[in-house]
């Protein structure tokens, strides 16, 4: 069942559906859909938008991967949001304070990022494993609490530096930055390569290693995994920590490639976007990459839509519609295939003449 139809048709159908639906919304609000879509596509070829889109997609990709690791194990890590912000502030502070030679500085920063992401993920993980606290509640709470932690740490009394009306951590020295790759008028984050590497590692871990097998097994059936010698609690702990570790990297492309400090105006919500992206990509690294690109593209479109006075909520609506219609399209295509299959069997049977034993020689299926 892995024909191009089952794989590619649904997303295409979904996008078409989303386009039609938003066109209706656009017409109601008195805008010209063609012009709007033209602008959305056209922006890609203007200035550095295409590069910016990929840059943003990198961030979404990491976030999506972090969420997906949890999903593999049936853990709903809503907490990527909190974990990445916690890691971002801690890493920015430590990275800004460190003075190390070039490559080592970067490596040290990345280690801190992963470790601090894990640390924040350890709270729900330990609560779940030892106390049975639902990770959904605990991460919702921790997502909020991280706001306080960031505010506390970035306070000028602690580690913050005020510039104008903004407060941010000290800038990370040149040695700790990851140089970008100039493309056209923009600059691609050097982190794109690292993200791709992480995606590959994710795929390899999941499909080729014993650990990945155990992870998926306990995600699919805790009981069967336990009987197969997989300790579900340990897997929960590790999956959550891994998820947190990757979440810790979410802010790094921007921190090490563009902003160099983390402050009160730094962007939030990447973690929540990650959920949508992971779901859109069906937890597959390549799917997540496509989902991230699509998402980033739509986000970027919002900015360009304003130029032609089209309300940019259209982009949000489109995102919602796409998420929903992709999955619906998958289901519809699946059902269609199933029905076709059933017909095929029926015809084959009729053709075979009604010999009792010709019916499913193999017993099942």
């Amino acid at each position: 069942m892995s024909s191009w139809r089952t794989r590619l048709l649904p997303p295409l159908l979904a996008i078409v559906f989303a386009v039609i639906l938003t066109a209706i919304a656009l017409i109601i609000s008195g805008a010209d859909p063609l012009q709007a879509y033209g602008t959305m596509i056209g922006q890609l070829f203007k200035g550095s938008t295409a590069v910016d889109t990929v840059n943003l997609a990198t961030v979404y990709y990491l976030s999506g991967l972090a969420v997906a690791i949890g999903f593999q194990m049936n853990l709903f890590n809503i907490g990527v949001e909190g974990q990445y912000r916690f890691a971002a502030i801690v890493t920015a502070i430590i990275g800004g304070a460190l003075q190390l030679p070039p490559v080592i500085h970067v490596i040290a920063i990345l280690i801190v990022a992963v470790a601090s992401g894990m640390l924040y993920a350890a709270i729900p993980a330990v609560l779940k494993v030892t106390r049975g606290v639902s990770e959904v509640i605990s991460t919702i709470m921790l997502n909020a609490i991280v706001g306080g932690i960031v505010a506390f740490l970035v306070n000028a009394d602690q580690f913050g530096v005020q510039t104008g009306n903004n407060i941010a951590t000290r800038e990370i020295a040149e040695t700790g930055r990851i140089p970008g790759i100039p493309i056209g008028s923009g600059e691609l984050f050097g982190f794109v390569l690292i993200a791709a590497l992480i995606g590959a590692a994710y795929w390899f871990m999941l499909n080729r290693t014993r650990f990945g097998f155990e992870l998926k097994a306990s995600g699919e059936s805790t009981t069967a995994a336990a009987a197969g010698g997989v300790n579900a609690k340990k897997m929960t702990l590790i999956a959550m920590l891994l998820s947190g570790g990757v979440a810790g990297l979410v802010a790094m492309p921007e921190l090490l490639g563009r902003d160099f400090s983390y402050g009160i105006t730094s962007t939030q919500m990447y973690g929540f976007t990650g959920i949508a992206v992971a779901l859109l990509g069906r937890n597959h690294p390549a799917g997540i990459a496509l989902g991230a690109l699509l998402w980033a593209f739509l986000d970027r479109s919002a900015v360009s839509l304003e130029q032609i006075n089209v309300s940019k909520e259209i982009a949000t609506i489109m995102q919602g519609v796409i998420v929903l219609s992709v999955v619906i399209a998958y289901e519809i295509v699946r059902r269609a295939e199933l029905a076709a299959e059933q017909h095929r069997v029926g015809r084959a049977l009729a053709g075979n003449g009604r010999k009792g034993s010709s019916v499913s020689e193999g017993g099942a299926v």
Partner: protein
Amino acid sequence: MTTADVLSPNTGGTTMPVKPPKRRIPGWLKGAIWGLLAVGVLAIASYATGVNTLTSTNTAHTALRLALPILLCALGGLWAERAGVINIGLEGMMILGTWGAAWGAYHGGVWAGLIAAVVFGALGGLLHAVATVTFNVNHIVSGVAINLLGLGVAKYLANLVFTPLSGNPRQSPPVPKFDTYSATFLSDWLSDLEKMQRVFISDLAGILNGLITEVAPLTMIAIALVPISYLVLWRTRFGLRLRSCGENPVAAESLGVNVYLHKYVAMIISGGLAGMGGASLVLLAGGADYLENQTNNRGYIGLAAMIFGNWRPGGLLGGAALFGYADGLQLAGGGTAVLALLYGAVILLAVIVAVQLFRRQWIASALGVVGAGALYAIYWTNDDLPSDLIPYTAHFVTLIVLAVASQRLRPPKADGALYRRGED
């Protein structure tokens, strides 16, 4: 030897752990005991620390107010998940509700606003039902999509409809609010009691007083919906059927229950309740009108309150109340009040330790002692908590309570399971 002879003395014994027919304490009684215990602890803390915000009328009033949207969302979650549909789209439905409330109230008064909010929320619920029930979409995917759609659609509609009225695409024009009612007669007596500053009695009076002053009809409806939800879900045939869809839809279908229909109805109710939660942000005096981003993740908190409450109406009331109280306390009382709450936590832990000692649970009591010691150390060494963290008191409290309380969570068995008729 007849089989009956062999079997009858042992029928109870065929299940291994023979459960003695334990006397169940009714839920409402348990709730009441917990409530009184909480008030008692707060009373002592308030007396010992001299911070009477802990149990003041104002705090209780605020807590009720802040708990309301959370409570309604949690009820929405309850209805959905009892029917087996995970609803993390509550936030989106709530946002739709805020828009509907403002729009309805602007054109037709508060009641029209409330109805519009319910209808808009219910539309969100309906969409969730179409996706999850008819198209078997993963419930979380659909929920995430609905959160996005709710936000996008509300913004879009606000832009379209409210901008000409308010000049602001992010805000509605001012809309009418619910009148409030007070049991004046009772509340006078209670405030006298509160002023007497007698331990416990004054505290209880303060809290009660807060709950009966300036109460809007919406508040009463929301509170009433807790027992109503219980009665409908657990005491009617419709409720039984609905719950059976969340426990074992295949069995339900095999008994002639229309699982799809019940899930649809449950989702519509769920969305309506979440929408009503949105209305409680818009239509209560002192609240906003429609304002972009005003829900501020309360939908998620509502979901958490429902899980906290173990998928039971009484429990989620407790969860919402706890959150509302802690939030109200930090807003109304600031750092000192939160510190006093810490003191209360120490007392509560002491009580728990005593109980555990009585039950001979040595490890648990040891842990309790350590926890209490740590909290007391924080209390003792700090005059003021970091002001940046105080706004998150409610979140901390929820986490701590969850970590301390032993978790016997019991979600509906088929919660989140995809069900298709004829495919078992």
